């Protein structure tokens, strides 16, 4: 018997730690490892240097973004001087799972606000600026058959909640969250084109959009200069972009759009962004009140702009936010879905 304080022998090697030695696979050197990795990095840079820069631009400001851009900018320059990136794109471009977008992007559309800047003057007020229901108009309520739920990460699991509620009533719920996207970051996806594509492909009768988790990035202004968040100038550009999307979604008044405002976030640094986005949604919707419903999430989840993790639902204190202090959790999304459903019921027969 071994002495009490002697190290015991492990029972058996059931973790197969010897497997690489048994196959004599440890036959190369560290120099080979470093060389192989450097060769991979080199090949990726010359074939796809631009994507490093793009990935950096998509990151939130911080050290990580600075580091990626410090590598990405020269890498993109090198890749542009060589033909390999084009060859690579030709060979692999067909594999992309992204939708082929149609319609006008923010840069080509009305979203830059260039029209207003050119002195065209204020557009006339038309009946579409008014929500007929508020003026006592009795509008017909058609049966809802097709609903598109979209947006950035805020729109999920709201999309699932709405799907689970409405599908049993025969509503086709198209769920299309586009994570990590934003109206002010059209480098990932251009929502101007995306909204046109969604409408062209799906022809939804109603659209629910919940977006605003990734906003706050600088955008080009009417004169091409970069405008930083979150003053009136930035809000105006954002509102023009949102207005272009609204125009697409309401399809000339044939569809209804339910645009959810963004509830306050835990991080006080996000308050100016949320305030600018919500103000811009309100401004953008002004000419389309007959078709666009701005659904106020802020007063429900964060009354008085005060962040809270939990709130009372059905008499019970319930956590409604994700730990990140930005998104709604499952319970919060269920409540948001209930509010959206009530709004839908005012325009459509359940």
């Amino acid at each position, binding site marked *: 018997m071994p002495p009490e*304080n002697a*190290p*015991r022998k*492990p029972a058996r090697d*059931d*973790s197969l730690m010897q497997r*690489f030695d048994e*196959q004599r*696979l*440890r*036959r*190369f*050197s*560290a120099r*080979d*490892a*470093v*060389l*192989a*990795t*450097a*060769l*991979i990095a080199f*090949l990726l840079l010359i*074939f*796809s240097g631009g*994507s*490093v820069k793009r*990935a950096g631009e*998509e*990151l939130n400001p911080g050290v*990580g973004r600075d*580091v*990626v851009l410090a*590598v990405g900018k020269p890498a993109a320059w090198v890749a542009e001087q060589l033909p390999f990136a084009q060859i690579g794109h030709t060979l*692999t471009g067909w*594999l*992309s*799972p*992204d939708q082929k977008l149609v319609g006008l992007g923010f840069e080509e559309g009305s979203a830059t606000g260039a029209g207003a800047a050119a002195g065209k003057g204020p557009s006339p007020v038309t009946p579409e600026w008014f929500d007929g229901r508020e003026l006592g108009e009795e509008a017909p309520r058609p049966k809802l058959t097709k609903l598109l739920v979209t947006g950035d990460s805020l729109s999920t*699991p709201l*999309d*699932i909640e709405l*799907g*689970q509620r409405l*599908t*049993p009533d025969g509503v086709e*719920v198209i*769920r299309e969250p586009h*994570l*990590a*996207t934003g109206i002010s970051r059209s480098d*990932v*996806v251009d929502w101007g084109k995306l909204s046109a594509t969604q409408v062209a492909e799906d022809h939804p009768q109603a659209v629910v959009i919940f977006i605003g988790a990734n906003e706050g990035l600088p955008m080009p202004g009417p004169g091409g200069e970069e405008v930083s968040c979150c003053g009136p100038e930035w809000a105006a550009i954002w509102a023009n972009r949102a207005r272009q999307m609204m125009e697409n979604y309401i399809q000339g008044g044939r569809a209804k759009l339910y645009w959810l405002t963004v509830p306050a976030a835990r991080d006080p640094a996000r308050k100016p962004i949320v305030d600018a986005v919500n103000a811009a949604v309100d401004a953008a919707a002004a000419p389309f009140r007959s078709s666009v419903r701005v659904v106020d999430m802020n007063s429900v989840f964060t009354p008085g702009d005060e962040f809270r993790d939990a709130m009372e639902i059905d008499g*019970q*204190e319930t*956590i409604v936010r*994700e*730990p990140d202090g930005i998104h709604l959790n*499952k319970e919060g999304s269920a409540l948001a879905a209930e509010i959206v459903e009530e709004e839908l019921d005012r325009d459509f027969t359940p």
Partner: protein
Amino acid sequence: MLFPTVQFAIFFPIVLALSWALMPKQRLWKPFIVVASYVFYAAADPRFCILLAAVTLLNQAAAKAIHATENQRRRKLITGVAVALDLGLLGAFKYYGFFAQNVDDLLNTWGLSPTAPLLSIALPVGISFFTFQAISYTVDVKRRLVEPASTIDVAIYLSFFPHLVAGPIVRAREFIPQLQSARDPEHVAVGAGLGLIGLGLVKKVMIADYLGRVVVDPAFGVPQAYGGPDLLFAAYAYAAQIYCDFSGYTDIAIGLALLMGFIFPQNFRSPYRATGFRDFWRRWHMTLSRFLRDFLYIPLGGNRKGRLRTYFNLMATMVLGGLWHGASWTFVLWGGFHGSMLSIEHAWDGRRRFPAAIRWFVTFNLVVFAWILFRSPDLSLFWTYFTGIFHGGSLSLATFPAVLALLAVIGLQLVPERTSHGIEVGIERLSPILLAVALAALILVVGATVPSQGVPPFIYFRF
């Protein structure tokens, strides 16, 4: 920081080159690799680094104290306190909300007002993995399977970035001996490392993410929108997705470690060719199975205390193993289901043995059924999904690429192990330069299949 991202593609070559440059000077290499690993972890949230450091220091202090005494009761007491603190941390971050909500629900049904304050706590990435590794270190020291290491070695063991966020759960006795001397720069499994990284990328990005995006997420999101054939297909697709996602991560982790000169234990061995549940757990998440066996099942008495006690031990181990995956009743039931199957298999021992093909068919389909529980966010959705399978409908989700991916994942696991292993070893012995060119081409192809929204996190990151 996710492995298949640009950030990691910049981080790793720099760390690899510096790691081998500093390797002969262990006094420099050790602080360097700790800093690199903490930088990697801080990319998720810098605050979590404090937690990781606290777990390291706590378990190191416990290991030293255990080693310093020969008094058995004292050794047991210190181990118990350290393990309780580790599990307490895990419980606070991972299970507090679950228990508080369930206690509140219970009190509400009795007409009592809630007592537990509701807190929304962010789950630190990888906490389930590094706390288990910390427990393994402390308990192995107590069991005299390993000597207490220096604090910096323990810090490397717990934070080493290839295994930090989603395993494999490397035991102290497997990893710490590799830190006793500099890794040999003339004996590196470069081919195996590159091969595993490539294989992992294909599994994760081309198969798991594709099946998730096109089949699994739509069906499990709103099962009411799909008929039985679609729901059945999506259940099998999820079996393929979770295998490719998790084993893909593990392949990359093992491959990265190999390039740095380290060896990790094997974590998967074609689990869908299992012909029984015991066999399945010898092939699926092997490092977790070993952990549960050595630190829970055997200390509970294993199969040494009679038939009924064996069943209880199996159930307890698997239910807790299920709960390890997350704070939800679906995970508890998933663990309970596996515990029941293991108990039934145990009870059947010595009776009629069915042909291997029948055993495989039954095991595989029961495992897939259990995955429906695992993937469902709550029990009501599970029930909707499960009952939906028996409704009619079309098979709209079974597109050609999805069927191909599914058949490839399941079919390749049924190829005789010797054949697939032979091919693997053949590739891994090729010239590293040739493999590097092939891997670069593969990354370009895999990268082209990534949607503009990027690569979704590995499923096991949230566990």
